[in-house]
């Protein structure tokens, strides 16, 4: 005997499958709009991928333009880009010779995504833990210390933190490698993951603390106290779930941001991720690479938005999912 119970409580009008279908189909025009705007924005930026301080001979430029299709009218380039995109082809990179954008992203994304996912997971567990402890000690030393440290963690930039950590744990103590990448060696992960996870951890701690303080003052938590329940039950069963709603909302941009890599961290630690492609691609006018990165980032953001909405609906049964 088995009963099927929906994971998410939905409005009676909209079953989960239909809701998901709506959201996924709804993402297509959004992505198309993002791609279109980005395509023309980067094209209208002055200079092109083959411009150098010393100008190339005119016939070389003409050959390059012909090879990459830049000699055709812009709208034709746009439609042919979309056609290739529909077949899953992001086009050739203008700067990384002999590499397609698909290859670049396929190689780099797992590195950035792995580091980012680990960092966000640690930030989530650690941040919620720290935030709850701070909230339960509201106004006391632990609370003030948490606030103070979180400001530091958010404010110190990664280009200061990572070298500082490398100096201490790599060069002084010889505990960890300063840079380099071997996916099978956990030791290589420690410093970049630490650098990546501290700001979101601090931010999640602050979000959790603030909402937890509010929830602990709510009437239903007072009822739970009046029922004589132990503090552990009150916090974990009654207070934590509603307190996590602001954290869930923050997760969408945080995950998309962290999993697409960090230019600073990956450059300093010598990691073969995709963190540098967006900035470098834009500076080099590597049109296809920029667009590829924009697509990866926005897809991740849109997907996380959906995940977060489901998560919030799961946290609060009063919320109905409606497209």
């Amino acid at each position, binding site marked *: 005997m088995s009963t099927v119970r929906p994971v998410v409580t939905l409005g009676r009008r909209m079953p989960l499958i239909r809701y998901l279908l709506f959201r996924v189909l709804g993402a297509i025009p959004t992505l198309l709009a993002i791609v279109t705007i980005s395509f023309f924005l980067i094209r209208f930026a002055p200079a092109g991928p083959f411009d150098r301080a010393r100008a190339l001979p005119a016939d070389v430029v003409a050959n390059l333009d012909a090879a990459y299709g830049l000699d055709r009218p812009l709208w034709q380039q746009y439609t042919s880009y979309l056609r290739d995109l529909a077949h899953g082809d992001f086009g050739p990179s203008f700067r990384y010779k002999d590499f397609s954008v698909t290859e670049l992203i396929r190689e780099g994304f797992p590195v950035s995504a792995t580091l980012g996912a680990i960092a966000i997971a640690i930030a989530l567990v650690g941040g919620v833990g720290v935030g709850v402890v701070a909230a339960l000690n509201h106004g006391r030393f632990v609370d003030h210390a948490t606030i103070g440290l979180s400001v530091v963690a958010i404010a110190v930039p990664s280009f200061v933190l990572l070298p500082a950590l490398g100096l201490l744990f790599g060069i002084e103590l010889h505990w960890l490698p300063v840079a380099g990448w071997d996916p099978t060696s956990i030791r290589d992960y420690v410093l970049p993951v630490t650098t990546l996870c501290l700001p979101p951890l601090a931010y999640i701690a602050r979000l959790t603390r603030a909402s937890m303080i509010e929830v602990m003052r709510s*009437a*239903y938590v*007072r009822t739970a*106290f009046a029922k004589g329940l132990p503090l552990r039950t009150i916090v974990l069963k009654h207070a934590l779930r509603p307190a996590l709603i602001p954290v869930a909302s923050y997760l969408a941009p945080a995950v998309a941001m962290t999993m697409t890599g960090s230019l600073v961290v990956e450059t300093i630690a010598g990691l073969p991720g995709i963190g540098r492609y967006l900035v470098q691609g834009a500076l080099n006018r590597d049109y296809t690479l920029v667009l590829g990165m924009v697509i990866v980032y926005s897809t991740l953001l849109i997907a996380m938005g959906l995940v977060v909405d489901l998560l919030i609906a799961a946290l609060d049964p*009063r919320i109905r999912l409606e497209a």
Partner: protein
Amino acid sequence: MSAEPVLVVEDLRVEHPGRGGAVEAVRDVSLSVGAGECVGIVGESGSGKTQLCLALMGLLPPSARIDGAVRFAGAPGGAARAVRGERIAMVFQDPQTALTPHLRIGSQMSEVLVHHRRSSGARAREAARAMLARVGIPDPAGCLRRYPHELSGGMRQRVLIAMSLLCGPQLLVADEPTTALDVTVQAQVLELLARLRREQRMAILLVSHDLAVVAGLAARIVVMYAGRVVEEAPAEALFHGPRHPYTAALIACAPNADGPIPARMATLPGQPPGAAERFTGCPFAARCDRSSERCRREPPPMTAFDDGRRFACHDPLPA
């Protein structure tokens, strides 16, 4: 008055320290509730009723300064806090917010028995279902599976009452249990409380700003003003012959459905002193039409009488 009281409060004082001096929410309140007795507490908003209830339950924030004695007969050492939710239970004013929104009713009810009685989940659910049936929930088994937002205000208050009664408490503290409800639902909830008191032989401390709510249920009524007790008397006697001018004013302000409809509702001009305000004499002096120089200078002492009446007034109304 019953022989052995379940609750004795002596000179209870609650202060909340803050910037610009402490706020005195409850000042020297003494009262007692006998076993199985219903005592009403009446007063305007801000008269310290809720603060008094929270102090009894040990639910005030740790920053609050509490003086005086609260002895609860059902607890070892008299501390209600230790038997909270079991021997002494509380029902709150606003049923809209008093239930945890993300937990089903069944889960919120059964956890009380699982914690206090070490019941198994299944036994606790069955007890919860039976209690919901007793408080008049039409489909108790279905109600257990509901979330609070799927119930009406009246149903939620019934759920809260049922939840507070699961362990068979000796004393129920009901803080404005009907204020957030429609008038018809109000009457049902009060009837329910009256019935449960008889059946469970449980004492009730019924708090309300509304004299009419308290009148039907309480054998004795305590009138509070500005954090103090100003008068206490058996319900009948209080209504028919209030001695404290404030009590008289409260009774005069209560709309009377039987009498002629007045062109203008009776009101009591002015406002009660704020909890942070300091004054030397009687707290009601500024609004009292009988007040004299002495009232503003000297706090009136509490005078107790053999018939169970007491009041604090220099110039009481004639008996």
